[in-house]
């Protein structure tokens, strides 16, 4: 028998195989234990708190209380609106900027493309802070207007509205769309664009019919990632402190940390998690439908 010594009995071989199988089966255990400890256990605690409150029976009472409040409806609407608007902005801006960097090169364009990774590495609240310095009521622009033209108040006041949050999120998350797009654009065969042009296609048709379809999986991947990140964005919303703009993550913070109402905070957190998972499922579905599997991003 190959792999066994001549003197070995059939039982001994079977025993050795069984122990080898047991050893192989144990390999996934350590990572599963770690995952359970740091991820599933805290999640289960949140779910337990949302369903039981402090030592109560299992009930959806806390969810129905949360769903019944105008504040929750407002936060849910704001969360979805801001995330959708910011993601759409990221997709449009990311596509245009990546297109320019890839196909209309200018001095320094390569350096600029490389710097995108740097923006991804920065904490999100830094942009909110920078926006405050630039567009805030005492920011550079408003103070310039006041000093130069004698304005009583600065004319720029969008920062403390949902638009301020959306703009800050677009600034932070656009690189997440650009990075996969730049990679996708670099894979497009320039000969295809040249041949299309020789056949009579003008630039807009080439973008629409050649570049866009080739970049669609990357665009969807980047856009969906933006959607997930903006749904759960906390730092920017908190830092800008826009009037009347409350989102689900901010509401969790308010309830759990400010008001010590852990049960309500956990119920909202569960809704936030479900919303994120639903978006993630949608992302996988859309990506598979539009050829993401072929592009290797699913």
């Amino acid at each position, binding site marked *: 028998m190959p792999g066994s010594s001549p003197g070995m009995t059939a039982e001994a071989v079977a025993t050795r195989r069984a122990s080898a199988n047991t050893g192989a089966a144990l390999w996934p255990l350590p990572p599963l234990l770690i995952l359970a400890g740091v991820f599933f256990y805290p999640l289960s605690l949140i779910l337990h708190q949302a369903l039981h409150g402090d030592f109560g029976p299992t009930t959806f009472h806390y969810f129905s209380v949360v769903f019944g409040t105008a504040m929750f409806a407002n936060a849910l609407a704001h969360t979805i609106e801001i995330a959708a608007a910011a993601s759409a902005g990221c997709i449009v801006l990311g596509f245009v900027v990546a297109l320019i960097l890839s196909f209309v090169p200018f001095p320094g364009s390569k350096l600029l493309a490389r710097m995108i990774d740097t923006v991804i590495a920065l904490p999100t609240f830094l942009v909110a802070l920078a926006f405050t310095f630039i567009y805030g009521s005492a920011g550079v622009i408003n103070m310039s207007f006041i000093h130069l033209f004698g304005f009583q108040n600065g004319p720029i006041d969008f920062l403390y509205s949902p638009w301020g949050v959306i703009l800050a999120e677009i600034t932070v998350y656009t690189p997440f769309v650009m990075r996969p797009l730049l990679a996708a654009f670099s894979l497009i065969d320039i000969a295809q664009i040249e041949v299309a042009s020789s*056949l*009579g296609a003008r630039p807009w048709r080439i973008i629409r019919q050649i570049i866009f379809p080739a970049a669609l999986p990357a665009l969807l991947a980047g856009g969906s990632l933006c959607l997930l990140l903006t749904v759960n964005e906390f730092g920017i919303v908190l830092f800008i402190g826009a009037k009347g703009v409350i989102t689900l993550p901010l509401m969790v913070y308010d309830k759990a940390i400010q008001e010590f109402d852990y049960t309500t905070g956990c119920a909202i957190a569960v809704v936030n998690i479900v919303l994120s998972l639903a978006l993630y499922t949608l992302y996988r579905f859309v990506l598979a439908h539009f050829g993401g599997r072929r592009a290797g991003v699913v």
Partner: protein
Amino acid sequence: MAVEATTLTGADAETTAAAAPAVGAASGIDFEGVSVAYKGTVVLSDLTLAINPGEIVAVIGPSGSGKTTALRAVAGFVRPSAGRVKIGGRDITDLPPYARDIGMVVQNYALFPHMRVDENVAFGLRARRTADALVKERVAECLRMVGMQSYTKRYPRELSGGQQQRVAIARALAIHPRVLLLDEPLSALDAQIRRNMLDELARLHRALPHLTVLYVTHDQTEALTLADRIAIMRDGKLVSYGPSQALYRRPPNRFTAEFLGRANLLTVTVEGRALGSYARARYGETELLVQEHPSLGAGSKCLLCIRPHEVLLSPPQGPCNTLRGIVQSTVWQGDQHHIALDAAGTTLRLISAPMHEPPRAGTVLDVHFHASHGVLIPHDEA
């Protein structure tokens, strides 16, 4: 793996062409002193070349010779730093590529991967806002022309290399281009398919005799098989241009002799004129009778070009020359024997039909060539 499409028969192509509307008015291509430079480096220098309407002109040369740059200047992908490019007498130098009415086929086919075969072929027509009914008709016609009518709903990835190239040709022809630019269109194909595609391109041009074709290749066989005329380039400059057979038979310079086919080049001295259009030349101790060269008079030191297949083991009819040499090597290549001789210090190669008993290395051998096959080439030219 996709199966190779049925080869298009000449009759099919000609019938299709007869039924097809005529491809746009015949248009020649004129390069008038065209130069192209990238970041100060001149890659194409003062190219002047006239291509007649309906001609196939092959531009050949080694890598970096500027042949593709010349094609790209016609396509509008590079802007000449000097000179003008004209198609059908119209100056197109400043026109964008989409306004030039050209069809283009490139080495890697550049089919649009997300479009089916029929959508690829229809692309140019749709870009020109052609009516749907006409698009459908023309797409079917072009796919029939290249023998791909059974593959309309396939994606490019579902086709073999040869099939993809056929679709690329159909796509280029669909718009009735004034000129067809072929940039090394066969170099990605294997040898067998390449030979078939060469035949098909030749048949296609017979079916579309008004189509002017600029064919860039580094393969001399493709150029000799297809082209009416050949332009040979080196270091961004046109080295020679003329009818294919004339360039092959009477190469005007050393580079042409060596690049277009194989050549034996012997250094000789012209001794004077002989009867007819012949001249007397001396190679070592041997006096030779060769074709006269108008600019090479008595006393000129020059090169004598003899093609390997013109060097014979037995004397031909008519005026002929004999050279004695020692066999260095004999190589059998199936349908040919390649023999290398040392003839007074220069290697002389000959190609013969397969022999039962080829000469062995070290054998002293007399070889012959007809006087009309000895071509003088000025020594000092490129």
